[in-house]
């Protein structure tokens, strides 16, 4: 039996282990501790990286685009943002590239991988996260916060004041109008709709509509529920080319009020789902027109 012949123990067991241990020790020796550089909370960051389309838009709105050194491949609005250096998508970013650009402020979203944020912080980079706003007020608050971070507090306040005036005007305008039931669809297969827990709900409520999915906890919704709630208006975001398909699908349900009144609309997803306070109100005005337009 070969299995149990005496083997030189040293050669077979110890020598590989010695080699491996040697490799490990050298690696551990090389592995230095993370940079715990003092995070300088400078009032006026000069090199900003944005990890979300809405943040990029807000930066352009505040007029500090010169300080934005890089953004994600999704940041296509306003058009000049396309020309900036790209460091990844909203979910997956290249840490090495960010680090090499030496930013003094990275603005992340809740889509950013938490591990990435942690790593960047370990590298001594200041990371601030802006979660998905819960409602319109939250959106404004985040915008003000961003203004404060980049030293443009006054400009941000001015923009917000202006926006709030416009919203008050809209509220007054729709106060006494009939409140249609609305479904705002943001995904197909499975059917995904705007619920009460995110800012998308405010597009409907501020425009004087009733969100039929407001109480739903998760965004996933069934067609049966839609049929029984019978919305007067259905708004579909583009989702690439799927929007048109979805419109046709809905038109098969002849009992729906939205079909009878021919009120199924398609809206650009980038506009609706990554807003700044200003673009929010622009879209809101558009939706007000859709909701209260005369039946065709």
């Amino acid at each position, binding site marked *: 039996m070969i299995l149990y012949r005496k083997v030189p123990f040293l050669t077979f067991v110890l020598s590989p282990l010695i080699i*491996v241990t040697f490799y490990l020790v050298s690696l551990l020796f090389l592995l230095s501790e993370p940079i715990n550089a003092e995070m300088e909370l400078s009032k006026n960051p000069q090199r900003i990286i944005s990890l979300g389309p809405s943040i990029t838009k807000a930066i352009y709105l505040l007029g500090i685009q010169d300080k934005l050194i890089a953004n994600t491949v999704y940041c296509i609005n306003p058009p000049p943002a396309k020309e900036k250096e790209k*460091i*990844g998508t909203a*979910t997956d970013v290249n840490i090495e590239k960010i680090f090499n650009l030496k930013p003094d402020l990275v603005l992340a979203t809740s889509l950013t991988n938490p591990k990435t944020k942690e*790593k960047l912080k370990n590298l001594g980079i200041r990371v601030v996260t802006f979660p998905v706003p819960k409602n319109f007020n939250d959106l404004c608050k985040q915008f003000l916060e961003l203004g404060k971070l980049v030293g443009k507090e006054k400009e941000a306040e001015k923009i917000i004041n202006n926006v709030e005036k416009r919203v008050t005007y809209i509220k007054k305008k729709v106060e006494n109008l009939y409140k249609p039931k609305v479904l705002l669809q943001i995904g197909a297969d499975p059917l995904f709709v705007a619920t009460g827990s995110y800012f998308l709900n405010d597009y409907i409520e501020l425009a004087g509509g009733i969100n039929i999915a407001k109480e739903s906890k998760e965004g996933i919704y069934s067609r049966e529920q839609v049929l029984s709630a019978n919305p007067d208006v259905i708004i579909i975001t583009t989702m690439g080319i799927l929007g048109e398909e979805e419109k046709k699908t809905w038109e098969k349900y002849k009992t729906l009020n939205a079909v009878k009144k021919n009120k199924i609309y398609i809206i650009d997803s980038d506009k609706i789902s990554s807003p700044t306070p200003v673009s929010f109100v622009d879209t809101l005005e558009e939706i007000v027109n859709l909701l209260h337009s005369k039946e065709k």
Partner: protein
Amino acid sequence: MKRKSIYWIYWILALCGLLLATSLFSLCTGSVGIPLKKILEVIFTGKGTTEYSIIFNVRLPRIILGFAIGGALALSGVILQGMFRNPLVEPYTLGISGGAALGVCLNIIFRLYQTFTVSTLPLFGFLGALLVILLVYFLSIKKGILKITELLLTGVMISFISSSLIMLIMAVSRAEDLHGIIFWIMGSLEEPNLILIKLALLISTIGLIISYLFWKDLNAFLLGEEEALHLGINTERTKRLLFILSSFLTGCSVSVAGIIGFVGLVVPHFIRMFVGTDHRILLISAFLSGASFLIFCDTLARIIISPLELPVGVVTGILGGSIFIYVLSKKQIILGGK
């Protein structure tokens, strides 16, 4: 006998060389190009520069984690394939990865990682893995005997159950939690916490050393369980200890790096084709080649569609699978048996 030992030593040296070469390759490739010539200069004199930080704080931790995880998964694959004498068994077959993923999913949907720290994710992964290990272990023990077939079947079933539960959680979770779950399931060697990396390294090395205590038993198992018993192996004890060892290695790897497939399945087969079935050489060669394979795949994943990064599991699957099929068609395969 002497010639064989020399042959083995050559193999080990070659694999160590390969490991060193892939590590160096990984160290100098990335979206910020640092040529090989400059590496030494940066290592010894460049303290404080950006290149220095990129090498030591961004790339090196990934290489070390790749070494630990790749080695641990390949080792665990060798042990399990040897023990079950089944070529399709891999570290994830027994449901350990499913358990870990379930633990992480629960953590994510209850937002525990936001209230506490990101480091609770691996902790929950590990707890989930541990739970599955205990469950599979105790379900397969009948009258004090660990039944190999039942162990395998229970493991596969638990794996299915947990993946369905994960899909259930994903179906009812909020959009931004969904991203967290998907990130984790795809697996990545990016780990901000240095302590975890060191821990993974320690565990996989200790696992390698412990596995060498069982080389005789594993070699005897090649002949079959009964034959091993006749050769004087305490098969019951060996089976239990090997199961616990390999699941522990898998659980640790999965909870740190997520589910990185194929390393534990392909590398053991691949290396067995070259060095043979003797576990004295097989254990160490699988460990070393698993480590270099994962480091290499991770480097490719970083650079193929830069600045974006592919999930490393994509690269291990495509590269590993196709190389394996190629070699299989050229060479007579030696599976777990004789």
